[in-house]
């Protein structure tokens, strides 16, 4: 789920008419000082990280003057909190607090509806308080068609033990919070504490919004780079992988790095799962075999071969992994030869230097395993393909044996190379790349097997040379399924005339940095 920082969340509250403390976000001590000067009163400084309990770790500090704020902020910038390095602080007026409340919204999977929660006690440990004092907490399932209505909010607050004018102000705040959550499609929203100041104002002192990953594309104004659940900022490689996923709706590609610093002596492997359930089961098998995972990756939902190819190239951008394991449920409904072809292309272009065990059980697994055997069985490469009869544990054991036989050699990341195309070659765009045919090579072709191999049957022969049989526009719109069959056939059986370029934006530069000894960023 895509989390917003406090300062981002508060901007949305403010737009919706909810009062927030005066202040702003700062990226440097100088900015901190400038904001504090503008406020002209004592301030509070808060680190911007996705971690609860910031006060305990020195993440919330106070300052009486702009000079002090600047000095204190120097101790806070650069602070390491879990996987974060603090690079932003919130600088706000220090509130004179009379009482603290809690307001929140979450999606209830049982009611299949949003639930709004209000507690007349707020602050840290609110869920424990809620457990001990249920009478102070009101919950309301909201009808998605009407939204949270003012009188409903007022009754909710009344049920938590509050009345009078403040209840009216709180109800107003609550309906606006619901509107923010609904507008930006938040999976959860919470204001803790929501405070009543000594001067009688209701102010959102803190706020956290978590936006639904699947709705992020409808809200470009939020500027969310990677719509994934993270407890840290995404790594450079994760951002590259996410671009691939975002630009291709066919199937799913999920990539998460478990470690950015795999060492040459670590027993870590690259993991390529298919489907959440099967991936988890396979990961367990990998861990039981004593391996660590450099990454978690899942290509499922019937992705085209091109997507699996890109996933493999991203996985193989991680230095020092000792092996590659691909494994899913074992009884997949998707045609497994697509995955097999994607891996064949990736492993060849990489010049794979580590063992790989590929468990492709499911629909057409025999054909998939045959593809792996036919095209990756040569030149002493150690790629083994297995089907549904072979358990994840067996496959993890096989990989272990192959890695040992390979002397536990760590994977060396090489500069990104792709097959080249002569200028002026015949070609057409596919959904996410370009297919080129060097017709000068076709002269020596005996079989013209590419036309036959083409799964969607969109190639034909013209003067003995393969060309597109449909409008280029239709090929680009998806009639060319990027199954890679023609390229693989031509490369291994004929004249190597066909090249399918499937760019991965940013990966070339990323590899350069790895090769030259810099890590991710």
């Amino acid at each position: 789920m895509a989390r917003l920082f406090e300062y981002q969340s508060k901007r949305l509250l403010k737009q919706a008419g909810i009062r927030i403390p005066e202040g702003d976000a700062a990226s440097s001590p100088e900015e901190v000082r400038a904001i504090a000067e503008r406020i002209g009163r004592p301030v509070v400084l808060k680190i911007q990280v996705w971690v609860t309990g910031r006060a305990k770790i020195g993440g919330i500090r106070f300052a009486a003057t702009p000079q002090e704020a600047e000095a204190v902020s120097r101790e806070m910038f650069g602070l390491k909190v879990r996987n974060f390095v603090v690079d932003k602080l919130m600088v706000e007026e220090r509130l004179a607090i009379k009482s603290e409340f809690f307001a929140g919204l979450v999606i209830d999977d049982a009611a299949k509806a949003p639930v709004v929660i209000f507690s007349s006690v707020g602050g840290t440990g609110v869920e424990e308080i809620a457990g001990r004092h249920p009478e102070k907490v009101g919950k309301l399932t909201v009808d998605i068609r009407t939204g949270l209505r003012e009188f409903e909010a007022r009754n909710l607050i009344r049920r938590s033990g509050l009345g009078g004018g403040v209840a009216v102000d709180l109800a107003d705040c609550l309906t606006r919070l619901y509107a923010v959550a609904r507008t930006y499609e938040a999976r959860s929203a919470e204001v803790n504490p929501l405070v009543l100041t000594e001067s009688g104002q209701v102010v959102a002192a803190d706020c956290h919004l978590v936006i639904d990953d699947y709705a992020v594309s409808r809200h470009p104004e939020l500027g969310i780079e990677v719509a994934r659940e993270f407890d840290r900022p995404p790594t450079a490689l994760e951002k590259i992988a996410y671009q691939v996923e975002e630009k291709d709706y066919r199937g799913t590609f999920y990539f998460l790095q478990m470690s950015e610093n795999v060492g040459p002596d670590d027993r870590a492997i690259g993991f390529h799962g298919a489907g959440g359930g099967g991936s988890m089961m396979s990961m367990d098998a990998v861990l039981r075999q004593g391996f660590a995972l450099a990454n978690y990756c899942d290509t499922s939902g019937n992705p085209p071969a091109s997507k699996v190819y890109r996933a493999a190239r991203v996985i193989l951008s991680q230095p020092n992994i000792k092996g590659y394991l691909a494994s899913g449920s074992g009884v997949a409904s998707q045609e497994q030869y697509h995955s097999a072809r994607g891996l064949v292309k990736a492993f060849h272009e990489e010049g794979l230097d580590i063992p790989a065990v590929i468990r492709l059980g499911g629909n057409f697994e025999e054909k998939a395993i045959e593809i792996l055997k036919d095209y990756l069985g040569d030149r002493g490469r150690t790629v083994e393909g297995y089907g549904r009869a072979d358990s994840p544990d067996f496959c993890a054991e096989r990989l272990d044996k192959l890695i040992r036989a390979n002397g536990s050699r760590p994977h060396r990341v090489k500069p990104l190379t792709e097959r080249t195309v002569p200028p002026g070659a015949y070609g057409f765009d596919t959904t996410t790349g370009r297919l080129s045919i060097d017709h000068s090579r076709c002269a020596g072709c005996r079989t013209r097997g590419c036309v036959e191999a083409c799964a969607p049957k969109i190639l034909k022969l013209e003067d003995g040379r393969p060309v597109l049989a449909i409008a280029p526009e239709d090929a680009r719109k998806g009639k060319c399924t990027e199954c890679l069959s023609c390229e693989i056939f031509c490369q291994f059986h004929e004249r190597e005339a066909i090249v399918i370029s499937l760019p991965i934006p940013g990966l070339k530069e990323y590899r350069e940095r790895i090769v030259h000894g810099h890590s991710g960023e």
Partner: protein
Amino acid sequence: MAILVNERSRVIIQGITGREGMVRAQLMKDYGTNLVAGVTPGRGGQDVYGVPVFDSVEEAWEKAGPIDASVIFVPAALVKNGALEALAAGVKLLVLVPDRVPIYDVLELSRAAADKGARFVGPNTLGLLSPGKAVLGMIGGRAERAREWFKPGPVGVTSRSGGMTSAIAYHLTQAGLGQSSIIHVGGDAVVGLSHPEAVELFESDPETQLVAMFGEIGTTQEERVADLIEQKRFTKPLVAFISGKAAKSGTRFSHAGAIVEGGRGSYETKVTRLRAMGVHVVDSLFDIPKTARDILGSKELSG
């Protein structure tokens, strides 16, 4: 008998001319599903594997006759519109195959379906299959495979993982145990038909003698199944596997989530609660067929 769908159910596909729609139309038709029409706006008059295509669900209903179920293969952002269209036309069972459907769209659909007395499976589902009768969605991928992997019999299968739906049913078949129906309830946080609704359907299906359930961490589905057992609304033997034991807890969803879920949703809470209700929770997926066989075998002896 089977739940939700049988060989007589009259079925349409929305998005039948798309990449997935076409391939799965072939699967469904070849397997024996009574596929009466397809819908793609602007493609009315065409046909896909002999199935007539119409411009709207309403038109399909008028020209091809009443519709019991619609399987939706359209891009995620268009699922809400397509599903509302089917509900408005009077379809009572929807299967929402696409992944990445926004959660508020699902909430709106839940409300709209409840108003119409309809239900939906998914989103993010492979669908459901009643062995030897019909398949809705893409379970099995190809008809010949689906016939080989799944056989009619006494076990109802419900799963939150698509691959595992097929895997459990396949391994049951290998152990000589057929299935009444198998259903992938979908992998998302909120789904139309969840485990508790599925087991209630299996409860009232005379063919189903035992249910196998693949659960996962997150949501309250498995705990709500335990609630049903406690309330005696589900009384058949249940064999369950809960995935996600190794997953890191610690990234807490939110205070609000903790208040609403009240300590439900973790691996431990699910397993403890289910075991307390007498559910056979197995530690390995591959133990499901053996456990099911033991239970059904002893039942036969005592019966």
